[in-house]
């Protein structure tokens, strides 16, 4: 059987401290769970079960409720993302201009599917909903950088340029 790649939780004390402060801010706010999850993901980069447990205890709600909300919304992720998060827009405007082909090219290039992360932790691919840059369709994003009017060949070149950069995120 193929061995499954498991991420171990490596939260730091500083992160835990930040999370506790965050929980304290939102504890009494009606509907505070969503903002807490959003900002907790900002602290840790993802929402592992350890973090969800701390949130459930902190807010005084059940873990299943936290888990239910965390898995309902596509913005929340229970697994870490790559250093370079590639998002391929599959909004209608991009789709009719061939973004499915772009996604396929990138998946083939990196050997992973949308929603996955490369074993070295360098890249993750997500297909996203409209990013709103329809004038530039088809659009891909690598972290916050937007690339417009992308062709399959350019998509490959863009990935290459990040492979060359390695893990440096300057």
């Amino acid at each position: 059987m193929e061995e499954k790649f498991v991420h171990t939780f490596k939260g730091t004390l500083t992160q835990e401290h930040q999370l506790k402060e965050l929980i304290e801010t939102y504890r009494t706010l009606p509907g505070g769970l969503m903002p807490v999850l959003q900002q907790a993901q900002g602290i840790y980069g993802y929402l592992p079960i350890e973090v969800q447990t701390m949130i459930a205890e902190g807010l005084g709600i059940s873990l299943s409720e936290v888990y239910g909300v965390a898995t309902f919304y596509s913005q929340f992720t229970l697994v870490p993302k790559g250093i370079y998060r590639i998002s391929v827009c599959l909004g209608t405007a991009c789709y009719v201009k061939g973004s499915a082909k772009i996604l396929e090219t990138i998946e083939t290039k990196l050997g992973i599917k949308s929603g996955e992360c490369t074993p070295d932790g360098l890249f993750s691919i997500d297909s996203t909903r409209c990013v709103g840059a329809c004038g530039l369709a088809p659009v891909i994003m690598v972290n916050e950088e937007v690339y417009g009017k992308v062709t399959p060949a350019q998509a490959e070149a863009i990935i290459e340029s990040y492979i060359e950069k390695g893990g440096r995120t300057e």
Partner: protein
Amino acid sequence: MTLEELAKIRAEKADLVAVRRLVKEKAEEMAAKTSYRKQVLICGGTGCTSSGSKHVVDALEEALKESKLEKEVLLVKTGCFGLCALGPIMIVYPEGAFYSQITPEGARRVVKEHLAQGGSVVKELLYQETVHTDGSIISLSETQFYKKQMRVALRNCGVISPEDIDEYIAVDGYQALAKVLTSMTPDDVIREVTASGLRGRGGGGFPTGKKWAFARASEGDMKYVCCNADEGDPGAFMDRSILEGDPHCVLEAMAIAAYAIGAQRGYVYIRAEYPIAVQRLAIALTQARAHGLLGNNIFGTTFSFDIEIRLGAGAFVCGEETALMTSIEGHRGEPRPRPPFPAVKGLFGKPTVLNNVETYANVCPIILKGSKWYSSIGTATSKGTKVFAVGGKITNIGLVEIPMGTTLREIIEEIGGGIPDGKKFKAAQTGGPSGGCIPACHIDTPIDYDSLLALGSMMGSGGLIVLDEDTCMVDISKFYLEFTVAESCGKCTPCRIGTRRLLQYLEKITSGHGEPEDLEKIEELALHMKSSSLCALGQTASNPVLSTIKYFRDEYVAHIEDKSCPSKVCKDLIVYEIDPSKCRGCTKCARLCPVGAIAGSPKQMHVIDREKCIKCGLCMRNCNFDAVYTR
């Protein structure tokens, strides 16, 4: 803030902003009265930011400093001008010179040659439609793109700085709220909004005044006003553009709604995917509070109201009103059965009014100019204007606002500049995953809520995607079904299972396994989903399929009976071949083919092995002689 203070700010800033609205000669006259000789407006919305407007702003700031022009040239970062395809966009007033696709180098040149003392417009860098054949510049409002537009909801987008409340006040901002609080009763407000004929711009088209009246009539110690900015329809960006370009107009309208129904608190539920809009909205909130335009005892009256921002987290269903409220409450964003309607039992169980961003954007002009003026625009049943995000296979991709009743032909051929590459128009998709297609034969239909419904589509929130002959209609409905399958919240069975079954039929058809009776089965299933789904997501999920079957049945039949895709999109139904008369035997394709499916020696004709071919299209894209084709 008092009314006098509001009037003072308005008087101080009015001339400066007026320069941007006037025709050239008058603008020059007005500019002379202000402390700035020139004003440079550059779009800082998502579209232009994505095409690099930040770098242009940096270059401008630097160049202006170097040339010591900062005191005479005002740089304003605005919201969307509309012509996103030509971004980054920069306009220089008082001339109204419209620079398109401007680069940092171009911007530096404009500083040196145009903005400097005695300089003149750099014609080569202008949007060429604004340059007459004799070399003179025509005003932007005379260009094809803007000529037929009418800006009500977008009135301030691309005109004011969204991060400066004083500029909003200069264009009559918060005057409507002042008028309402000091001279109108809540019932007067509701009467005015009802008389205007304004209907919900989020898609459903429910009369706004009626909604407010219901909430006003509901008893409750606490009431809420919410703004739906969870614009999830793929390819739509109207609401985002309004929030990026004119956030205060939404806050002001929410306060008016709150006064009308007797609410104390408001929420804006906005997509987290819109960072610029969120940021500008947050700035606007802070400024409005600092000016006392939100908070306790606004304008010294007994009316108190404040607003909070809540971020969505990527769930399309949260655009549905009850799901949105469940999400604000901090739960999984699942819809609730109606009745009870939100006006009776909404957010946290209290009476709530929920309107879309664009609906709110229409409220202040109605209060200031009157319902008579507003209802004079549009058609018999649909008043006012509608903003569309026009995208897909069209030249002028961007944001347009037209009076209701404008025809699709006017939008596509005149405002949109037609279909690029000489392709033929096939259909327009409106309403996104809940809407349908308007085929070429109905291109002269005047657009309003009812005409679109009659065609089997819907107004939706305003996404308008243009499709040309290269678009496969079966594939596009499969695309929408994939979307609704992923976004169905799973609470009710007709939607959860129904969307999946519909998608399976479409996958069967596009992979060449379709059977003639599939179409009937789809139609029957769609009927059940419409009648029994809990919310609009499931009730309307079948619309893209139904409307394409209605207008493009022949394409479905071709997929099912001939096992062919007329637009050559569905991979399983096309084969790649090499035209013997065009192939020169250059071996390029054989070398590129990732699976070694192409055989042939140099200078000999090449052949594709169909068994091995994975239809990636690499050979076709790279052939220098156009010898590879599909059939």
